[in-house]
């Protein structure tokens, strides 16, 4: 982005005089398209590259340049980083980091392998995935499964400092990347399925000292909300905005974890992220004192916080009183687009709940909220009339309300499934087309909540669910779509056999890349989704596609290695109860297509 390039040029002089701050360094380094310093591409989370050597005409000629086995079998999410002549590859638990020499086809320069208590493994809901490193100012920030945040010297792999962010004994773990902002490292936490109380924490980038922590639930002083100044849908949130929406002290084990992505806008100085589901999955146990639904703020919300103080500027709750496990943690993509004919600074978010939101990222004003899978059925839509008491709230269809159907009863045919229409796999935005390219799931579910009790460090789920491919559709479990966030419309949609669980990459060459669960790296035309290239990598892809340039040549790289929630839910294949017993096994099982194993595959033109 031009603005960022200008800013980084003017900051270079300051950096000379005093120790460079990660913010400036990240801006400077991420402005170079040859590199990747953040998992999200840039602060805006756009996942767009200005590299254009590989384009619509020649992408069909891509060949494998070199490969690298990580030696780890678990699900491989995220992407390698490239800074200068070095590529940094991370792995799932045990969270190894490799520094590879790009001048020598990936020769290992150094390897870092932390010692972690294996008892953290089973408290990681849904595989020991890890979405990767972040780089700033000569330092790699590595957030391990056991929540230890380590600063590594990028040249040597030596530990500069480390700090522990949570307690795995209570089910607190990490799967996410961190975001270096200014002189701070912004860090989240996982574990809502264990009743963890979610929070975001800022650590000093130089020392690891804790600077602020903002919980998702609880008193104003702990969630860092100002009753007068923190806004939601154009109004101050008021006193005790979280406490008022919980029954008793349930907020202390209330979830709202923060295991997704962070984005940052240097103009507003705001960090944007989403919060996860309230615990438990049984909504009946979370009802208010009067037995009625109660919001459980600020779970399932988009929150914008001041990077320096952590104070919330605005917040918007997408799914008040969640009844389906639709975590709100997916990425917040910042873009400048025309909405209603006017240029707007927006934040675009594709939520698990099947709705895509476009908000003004400065004020939090809600501009668009529409289904990005037409089969989404739990809601009839979000009320956009400002004067309605229901303004900004999704309207729940009673037939698909697991709360109204009740405890110990099965609510059938809810779309999407708990996987969401999209999970953490990030979408990309291309300023060439002004379209968002979104990897999606096309799966529905039956959901039966029932009573559970809380024990620290033990699963706290409270619902049983069966998932199946969306009925009356193409039979597949995923789509890759192009989305217009100004109008809330799907521009094109490409069906996939399995959920698309890989982060997309949009390029200045007019090509959009993504991976599939069978293991294909695919390249499609940005205009209409026409498939231009595919290659079957060694295992299913749940990693994110990245690109870099070395010695003037563009490369595309992706981690394969099936696993994660997708691998757990889809390995054995899904069954469709609505089609009776005869159809059991009639749907493709992922295990018939791919097996475990982490490999990096790097592509280039011949």
């Amino acid at each position, binding site marked *: 982005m031009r603005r960022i390039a200008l800013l980084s040029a003017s900051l270079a002089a300051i950096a000379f005089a005093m120790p460079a701050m990660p913010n400036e360094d990240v801006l400077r380094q991420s402005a170079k398209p040859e590199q990747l310093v953040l998992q999200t591409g840039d602060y805006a989370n756009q996942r767009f590259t200005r590299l254009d050597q590989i384009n619509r005409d020649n992408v069909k000629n891509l060949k494998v340049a070199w490969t690298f086995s990580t030696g780890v*079998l*678990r*699900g491989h999410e995220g992407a390698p980083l490239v800074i200068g002549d070095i590529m940094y590859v991370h792995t799932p*638990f*045990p969270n190894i980091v490799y520094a590879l020499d790009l001048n020598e086809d990936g020769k290992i320069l150094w390897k870092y392998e932390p010692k972690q208590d*294996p*008892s953290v*493994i*089973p*408290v990681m*809901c*849904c*595989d*020991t995935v890890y979405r990767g490193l972040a780089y700033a100012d000569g330092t790699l920030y590595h957030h391990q499964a056991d929540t230890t945040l380590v600063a590594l010297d990028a040249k040597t792999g030596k530990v500069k400092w480390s700090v522990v962010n949570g307690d795995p004994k209570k089910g607190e773990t990490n799967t996410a990347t961190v975001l270096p902002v200014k002189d701070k490292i912004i860090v989240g936490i996982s574990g809502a*399925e264990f009743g963890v109380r979610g929070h975001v924490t800022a650590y000093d980038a130089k020392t690891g000292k804790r600077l602020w922590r903002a919980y998702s639930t609880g008193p104003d002083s702990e969630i860092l909300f100002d009753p007068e100044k923190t806004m939601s849908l154009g109004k101050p949130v008021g006193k005790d905005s979280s406490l008022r929406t919980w029954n008793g002290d349930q907020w202390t084990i209330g979830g709202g974890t923060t295991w997704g992505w962070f984005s940052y806008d240097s103009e507003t100085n705001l960090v944007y992220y989403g919060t996860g589901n309230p615990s438990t*999955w049984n909504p009946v146990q979370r009802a208010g004192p009067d037995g009625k639904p109660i919001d459980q703020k600020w779970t399932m919300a988009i929150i914008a916080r001041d990077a320096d103080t952590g104070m919330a500027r605005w917040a918007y709750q997408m799914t008040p009183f969640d009844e389906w496990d639709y975590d709100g943690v997916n990425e917040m993509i910042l873009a400048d687009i025309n909405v209603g004919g006017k240029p707007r600074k927006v934040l675009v978010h594709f939520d698990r709940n099947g709705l895509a939101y476009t908000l003004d990222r400065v004020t939090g004003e809600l501009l668009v909220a529409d289904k990005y899978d037409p089969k989404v059925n739990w809601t009839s839509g979000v009320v956009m009339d400002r004067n309605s008491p229901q303004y900004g709230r999704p309207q729940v269809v009673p037939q698909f309300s697991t709360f109204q159907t009740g405890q110990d009863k*099965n609510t059938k045919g809810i779309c999407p499934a708990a996987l969401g229409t999209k999970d953490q796999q990030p979408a990309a935005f291309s300023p060439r087309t002004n379209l968002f390219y979104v990897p999606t799931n096309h799966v529905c579910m*039956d959901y*039966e909540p*029932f*009573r*559970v*009790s809380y*024990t620290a460090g*033990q*699963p*706290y*789920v*409270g*619902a*049983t*669910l*069966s*998932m199946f491919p969306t009925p009356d559709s193409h039979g597949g479990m995923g789509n890759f779509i192009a989305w217009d966030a100004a109008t809330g419309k799907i521009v094109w949609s490409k069906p996939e056999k399995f959920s698309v669980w890989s982060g997309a990459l949009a390029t200045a060459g007019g090509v959009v890349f993504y991976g599939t669960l069978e293991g294909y790296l695919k390249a499609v035309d940005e205009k209409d989704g026409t498939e231009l290239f595919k290659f079957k990598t060694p295992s299913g892809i749940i990693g994110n596609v990245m690109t870099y340039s070395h010695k003037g040549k563009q490369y595309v790289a992706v981690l394969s290695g*099936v*696993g*994660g929630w997708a*691998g*757990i*839910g889809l*390995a*054995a294949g*899904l*069954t469709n*109860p609505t089609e009776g*017993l005869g159809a*059991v*096994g009639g749907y493709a099982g*992922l*295990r018939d297509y791919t097996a*475990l194993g982490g490999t990096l595959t790097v592509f280039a033109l011949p």
Partner: protein
Amino acid sequence: MKRASIGLAFVAALGLLSNLHAVGEALKKEKDGKWEAADGSPTYNIANDGTVDWYTFSGFRRYHSECHVCHGPDGEGSTYAPGLLEPLKTMTYPEFMLIVATGRQVVRADKQSVMPALGDNANVRCYMEDLYVYLKARVDGGLPRGRPAKRADKPAAADAHEKACFGDR
């Protein structure tokens, strides 16, 4: 090992010959909606019209809350943890309880597979028999994948057990 020999005996009694299986079925006893095999271990019951007993159904529900996130749907296994249908062919109820309550670890350079100890978790501890009979019904009772189509009503004894186990007043 004693465990193995008990396991073998169990296999012989239940599985290898279909007429023995039929004998096993015939020797099952029912009390308050709960079924017990001839050797005293808990077992499932599937009526001719496919109706499963309450405990098998309850096991299905609890499995897909507590176990499914690692072992995959219907005991089929996942990319993260092994399937349970093979091991449950030979595993006795005492062995099953021991593993679920205390966990299990395989930690090597090439493999880190850790099952947590779930004995402190009331959502599991209070439903050990339910989980076992559900998986046995999947393994050798011909219970198909997915939610059982029909189930018996919840017996009063199951309610009482649940309340006592959760420590209700």
